[in-house]
């Protein structure tokens, strides 16, 4: 969940999120804020299962710095014909982005 900037007694310095934007996660519209990574948005939405490998169960954000590739999600792209897989932890959410958290499994099966 998102940490509220106005939470009383919070010792964290106040913060201001970017402009609200809408992205689509597995077909559902979700409000996100500019400057957030896809991993940030997904976790804020309580969606922790990001990737499904062919044989095993769901995986989630693990290293958080773009090294482990556990948080791959598919992003539909206007420019290219097929969706591309990106690391949710290092990819910024952009207005209108359409991402799929289970596309890997569907593609393989």
């Amino acid at each position, binding site marked *: 969940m*998102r940490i509220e900037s106005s939470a009383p007694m919070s010792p964290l310095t106040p913060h201001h999120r970017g402009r609200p934007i809408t992205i689509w996660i597995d077909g559902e519209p979700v409000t996100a804020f500019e400057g957030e990574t896809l991993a940030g948005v997904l976790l804020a939405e309580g969606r922790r299962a990001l990737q499904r490998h*062919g*044989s095993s*169960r769901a995986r989630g954000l693990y*290293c*958080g710095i773009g090294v482990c590739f556990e948080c791959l999600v598919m992003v539909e792209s206007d420019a290219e014909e097929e969706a591309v897989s990106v690391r949710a*932890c290092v990819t910024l959410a952009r207005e209108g982005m359409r991402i799929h958290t289970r596309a890997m499994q569907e593609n393989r099966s």
Partner: protein
Amino acid sequence: MIETTDVVIVGAGVAGLSALASLAEVAPTARIHIIDNHDQPGGQYYLQPNPAFSVDGRLTHRAEAETLFQRAQAASAQWLLNTEVWAAAPTGQAGDSGWALELSAPDGLRRLRARAVILAVGACERALPFPGWTLPGVLTAGAAQNLIKSQRVLPGRRVVVSGSGPLTWAVAANLAEAGAQVVAVLEAAPRLVWRGARHLPALWGQWHRLREGFAYWRVLRRAGAPIYLGWAAVAARGETDVRQVEIARLRPDWRPMAGPTNRRMLDADTLVVGYGFTPATQLSRLMECRHVFDRSAGVWAPVRSSDMAASQPGVWIAGDGAGIGGADLARVEGQIAGLAVARHLGWLRPDLARSRLAQLQPALRRQRRFAALLADVFTPGPGLCMLAQADTILCRCEDVTLGEVAAAIDAGAGTVNEVKGLTRAGMGFCQGRMCGDLVARAILTARGLCEANDLSQAGAATPRLPVWPVSLAHLAAAGRAAPGRAAPGRSDTNERDPARR
């Protein structure tokens, strides 16, 4: 597109920025390129939120970060952000120690030739497998800290933090301050006080670190978070994500103890794990720099001279990518590497270089002493590195379990490369960054060599390009732009196995 430059710095974290500043200050006319795979400089230590997201007041370490950013910005360097170096090869001209680096950015591929390369690539967290470590809800301390610091998002509501070393405390305190319920903080290092006491001299002068540590401890006390010394999480349980975390008291050799008084099951939705770091050596290994296994720190690290030169001509390595020492050591090493490169390329007179480098030696020694303390006290012993069971996944990318790795070892595989060939462990997207050492440890365990803790006995996986995934569309476009060079990179004749050297 091929560009040329004098110096390329790979990594714009503490070491890279420090190298850039010290180099540019003595060589204002040098052509310098600095590359980073994030959208902003700073690395993990000075991680900056995206500009769309603003934070009032000072972030942690902000003041020292500003100074370094200002010095780095004053250098007239070319900044290549959002860019990964996926291959590097010597340019191969006689009398030239230059390198050609293959870069991948969102808009395509490019090649950069440089007379000298400073690698400041940093580290990633040490993977330590246990049953349930692949469940959603298990994440590294660095991941949790990034979420809080640069996203202001909590990874969960009820969190267990288990690890060894200062980051464990920092993250636990960050989580408590951000409003998570910290169910338990587990510092795994057994006999912490006794072991730490032997290093008292190295603590002298590290007051800011001690102050920081004390502040974290106070936050945790105030939040009422139970603190367990000499305990660690040994399993995460749940069907679809983490629901429970099993913790155990550790013996002096870090092996979990059995029996009801030494085990507990905690209800939690998130497990944060942080057992230290591993230098990112994929690129330095691809460049065939010599590496050795450091048993004390439990990591592979490149061999360097006193001025940070690697064994390959034209390559200098600074910061955590050469051995884990943290930001203060990275800053000094970056300075040294910058001066050494300036001398190498003739921008700094050798006598001046010698005196400038000599001035940095005391700081270097002091920070290395502290790094040695951290390594000695907090590097997980073999007992905690063998929690995986037959059905526990070792290679996350290719879904290879310990059981499958063990079967390959039974079938005769004796090195990481041989296990890789039989099981695909290490062949996935992450290129073995996570599982390479885990496979080595499985081999040592099978051979009864685990206690020696010397992973080099199982060899290291031969690095293969691309060290980061590259888009096929980008490769195809690069091939169209330069016919006959569709797959740039090293020539086959140049290929040798660094593990055999």
